[in-house]
């Protein structure tokens, strides 16, 4: 990107001479584009030739065929009889569910570690520094393999660890009690989400009022009412039953409950620990970028340190934090493709299996690229919107 100049020099007239800048520029462009086009054309003609020699028809028609690949860990209904398209969708959902939960957890842990790194408590800040340094300097793939080996080394289902009743940790993964979800429950959850949205806009409105007249208003009772009491009322009126199914050990495996497969769990831990180390550094430097005077002024007003951090320093630090944070989120999403190394079936793993089964290399890799470019674009859009939202409003 070039910075806009206040006054452009008058454009030189084009003349057909090598000493003329505009003409030379045009020649350069023609040459570079010609080389690029020739290269692509050459590669393409080779590919067409090779594909026809191997009797592979190009195109996405294979997506409608029966996939015949088993997918073990999925949220969507899937059987090997389903089509490749369905398998790809399952893969995308698997990628998203590790990426989204990973981003949330990494942000929370990273922020806490970043704050801990600036603590006045020497031991706490040292430990946070060690956490960051160790996790940052070991390749994520190695960490992933390490966690996966540890998962496999857990006791078998029969001797599973039971930290709390109904929660089992074994080499089959983590099993927790489940709640049956059908019609009624979704209404209640919907009400809670709606209540939260109303609460959020109400909160903003109240804060605006507070800025106008300076009177503090209690916000939390509204939250309690909208997010807890209202859904509870809906649940009671509709007579929704909340049955909790406890997992049970039958033979060698668990019945009932929600299972987080060891592959998913290992991937999540590796991504979260690795990324949180980077986020911690971003948060630390963001907080340090806030001028000391802000601390001093706020403390001089007699505010508590935790209040100063939450309400004065972090909001200002966010402006420094958000842009590098966005690229960490993108990195986490891209790193989720390491799943293929331990057999968690994300989009890359499923595309790879498809590629081996059908030989549709170009299509499979084009799909991977399309999916990741879309996710990256989505994250960038959300983060840019958020960045604009918190940007300093100057008079």
């Amino acid at each position, binding site marked *: *990107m*070039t*910075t806009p*100049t206040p006054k452009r020099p008058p454009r030189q007239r084009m003349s057909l001479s090598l000493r003329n800048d505009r003409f030379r*520029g045009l020649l*350069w*462009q023609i040459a*570079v*584009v010609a080389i*690029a086009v020739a290269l692509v054309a050459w*590669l393409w003609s*080779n*590919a067409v*030739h*090779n594909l026809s*020699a191997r009797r592979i028809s190009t195109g996405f028609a294979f997506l409608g065929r029966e996939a015949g690949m088993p997918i073990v860990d999925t949220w969507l209904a899937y059987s090997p009889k389903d089509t490749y398209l369905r398998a790809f969708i399952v893969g995308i959902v698997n990628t998203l569910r590790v990426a989204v939960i990973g981003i949330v957890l990494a942000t929370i842990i990273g922020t*806490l570690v970043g*704050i*801990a790194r600036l*603590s*006045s*408590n*020497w*031991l*706490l800040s040292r*430990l946070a520094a060690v956490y960051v*340094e160790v996790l*940052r*300097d*070991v*390749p994520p*793939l*190695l960490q992933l*393999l*390490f966690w996966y*080996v*540890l998962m496999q080394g857990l006791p078998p289902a029969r001797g599973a660890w039971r930290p709390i009743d109904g929660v089992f940790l074994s080499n089959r993964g983590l099993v927790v009690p489940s709640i049956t979800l059908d019609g009624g429950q979704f209404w209640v959850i919907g009400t809670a989400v709606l209540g939260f949205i109303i609460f959020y806009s109400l909160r903003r409105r109240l804060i605006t009022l507070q800025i106008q007249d300076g009177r503090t208003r209690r916000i939390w009772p509204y939250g309690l009412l909208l997010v807890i009491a209202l859904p509870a009322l809906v649940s009671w009126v509709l007579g929704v039953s909340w049955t909790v199914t406890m997992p049970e050990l039958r033979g060698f495996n668990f019945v009932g409950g929600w299972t987080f497969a060891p592959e998913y769990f290992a991937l999540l831990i590796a991504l979260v620990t690795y990324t949180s180390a980077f986020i911690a550094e971003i948060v630390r430097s963001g*907080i*340090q970028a806030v001028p*000391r005077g802000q*601390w001093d002024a706020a403390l001089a007003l007699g505010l508590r*340190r*935790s209040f100063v*951090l939450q309400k004065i320093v972090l909001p200002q630090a966010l402006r420094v934090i958000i842009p590098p944070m966005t690229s960490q989120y993108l990195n986490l999403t*891209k790193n989720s*493709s*390491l799943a*293929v*190394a331990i057999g968690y079936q994300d989009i*890359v793993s499923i595309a*790879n299996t498809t*590629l081996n089964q059908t030989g549709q*290399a*170009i299509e499979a*890799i084009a799909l*991977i*690229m399309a999916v*990741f*470019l879309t996710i990256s*674009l989505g994250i960038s859009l959300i983060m840019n919107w958020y960045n604009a939202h918190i940007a300093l409003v100057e008079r």
Partner: protein
Amino acid sequence: MATATQDTSRPTSRPRSAFDANPVTHWLRANLFSSITSSIITLLLIALLARMIISFVHWGIWDAVWTVPGNDTSACRAARGLGACWAVIPEKYRFILFGTYPYDQQWRPALATLLFIALFYASCLRRFWRRELVLIWAVMLSLIGLLMWGGAPGLPFVSQERWGGLPVTLILATFGLAFGFPLGIFVALGRRSKLPAIRSLCVVYVELIRGVPLISLLFMASVMFPLFMPDGVNIDKLLRAQIAVVLYAGAYLAEVVRGGLQAIPRGQHEAADALGLSYWQNNRLIILPQAIRHVIPPLVNTFIAFFKDTSLVLIIGIFDLLTTAKTAIIDPAWQAYSVEVYIFVALIYFAFCFAMSRYSRHLELQGKRGA
């Protein structure tokens, strides 16, 4: 977090007591027990740390098995669940470090590794930051190539398929940097060019590569690349992976260099133009030397990330350090001791990355001091 603060030496209004007179207790009080919350955190952390250290000492040192006779792992099996089996390291370290390179020739990859380290060390010294550094790199890299391939008298030829371990990791990373960096410079210049066709080509290249995971590029290199070549042209797998790594590095380094270019004030361009320098002279003599100096710390950080990322070649089956480690524990006798092997390899990666990150920190501090 109530304990967050920015400095540790805040003057307290508390009256001076006997605690403050003694430097040790004064330090303890200021840094570990400055308030009730802080004291609770300290005590909790000490308890947690003590537990962790004790169990690690038990597992890693006290109850660990350090050597076993031959391939007989019964001692390790007896200690299973209690102590580590470090015996796997002396048994397997040659394979982990050098892969399937002929056993009696393994001094060559070892020497190559040392040359790499010497090359990195020399490149870190400010006194070597001159034009001749390019020449040193060229000579050293050819020397390393000669050592690894052999073919000269006294050095039997070793084909690439037998290379493995640490040298392969270093080769992928170093050659990736050596070719990716010039590529990145050209792309960064292209992205800031006034010529729309060149600019858009560079933007597409950078955004496409940065938008997808490295794994998909490596898949492309291993599966799609042969499709794009004419019949009979068969490029070695390591070289294909190397090309993917160079393209990947080029895109990321281009963005770093672009950051440096943006930091150069317009006046520099205009002054150089006024001197009558051409576009290339202008960039070579005036703009790039300044721009690159600006971005050396982020360049080192990119290189660290990139060094770690080379481990992904495991997925397409190239024998880098991580792959040899994973292969070493396929051996049924040692299968159960992968944690020990992973810790060993993690230490090697850590040593390299930690050295680089310390160096980058050092550069940043120097930059702040205005060196």
